[in-house]
């Protein structure tokens, strides 16, 4: 009954994600290769905000890690003539970095730079 009440609170997607996690952990413990994701990969960004869309493009579509995304986008922006003083320093949290960047550089330029990485 306790388990049922735990499960009942989850949405279908959350439940599937939990099942996936359990399978991956079981396989890892048994020394087997982790199976392919069972749940469907998200088709688009979670919302329409510029930072979310740019982050989706870099992380989900191009498969870059957060540090790699920051590094590549910084380089692409510099190539487009954006002054280095406008590009925030540091790495790690891509979303926070993008929020800071979008306060200094217009979204159209940042999105254009992200698309340049995609088209390379």
């Amino acid at each position, binding site marked *: 009954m306790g388990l049922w009440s735990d499960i009942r609170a989850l949405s279908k997607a959350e439940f599937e994600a939990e099942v996936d996690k359990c399978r991956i952990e079981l396989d890892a413990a048994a020394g087997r290769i982790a199976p392919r994701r069972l749940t469907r990969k998200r088709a*688009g*960004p979670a919302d329409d905000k*510029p930072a979310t869309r*740019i982050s989706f493009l870099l992380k989900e579509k191009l498969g870059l890690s957060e540090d790699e995304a920051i590094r590549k986008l910084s380089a692409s922006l510099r190539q487009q003539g954006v*002054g280095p003083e406008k590009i925030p320093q540091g790495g790690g949290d891509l979303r926070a970095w993008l929020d800071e960047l979008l306060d200094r*550089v217009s979204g159209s330029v940042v*999105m254009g730079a992200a698309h340049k990485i995609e088209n390379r």
Partner: protein
Amino acid sequence: MKPVVAFMNLKGGVGKTTLAGNTARALADVEKQKILLMDLDSQCNLTQLFCSADEIDRRAERSVYQCFESKQFLKQPPYPSDLKVGLYSSPTGGQVDIIFGSYETFRLAITAPGKLVPKAAAQHFGDFMQRARAEYDLIILDTNPSASFTTLCALDVANFLVAPITMDLFSLRGIHLIKQVLSDRYTWLGNPKRIRIFPNRIRRARSDAETEMMERHEQEIRSRFPRLDSSIMTNRIHESRLLFQRAPGGGFIADRQIYAIHRRAKSKVCEDFEQAARELSLSLKEAFGDARYDGEANLRALRRRFKEDGDGPVVRH
């Protein structure tokens, strides 16, 4: 250089007027600027946002037509304060004034180009705009979708283009056409920093499939017009019934009286405009320079980069 922004697209029905008016108000709030709106469209759609057709006739003596009126071209052009009507004073200190449109501007649209009258009118308008530039931080020109006399006059005095689009190939083609045909005459149109494409009436995706479809569609549009890619704004105005004007004189969306049930929808639309205004303001700073970023710091960074690369510019003493 003070920005004079023309809201323009050769495709009609993309939301030029709605976006010009409401963005001006949002910019006044966000940037605390003194903004002048001018209705150069002989259909007077922007004017109708704020007054009725009868009122337009009553105000004919103090309209945008006076900025062109060549009868007076030997005299001095009018001052903006002679023609403007105050629309909005922001609590932050911003201000929006308007010079109403006039059906009379249609007379200018059908006069043969190259004749003395239109030339004098264009000259008169240019002189008026110089005076307006001295008084305002930003001037926004609402134009009509054809390449008429007043539209070309707008491009003569403008130095920044905002082109509203609905996410379809036709409306982006309208901008492509402006760039292709007019960039010889107006060289600033060749600079991607001086053009912003403003997506309007974008549906809010309700499912993953819809999101995926819209992303694919946007991607297709971007790949069809790669040169316009970095000019497409990331903030967009979402589709909302509140943006459809029902009766003349409705005013800015943010000031409109609405039923309580629509309050959330209204705040979402206002947030869209606010975010878009922030992005547009950054784009204007990028195009015209901004003391916070583009001064000595830029120069120092450039010198540092040249030093690192080892092949600096040749300096003559």
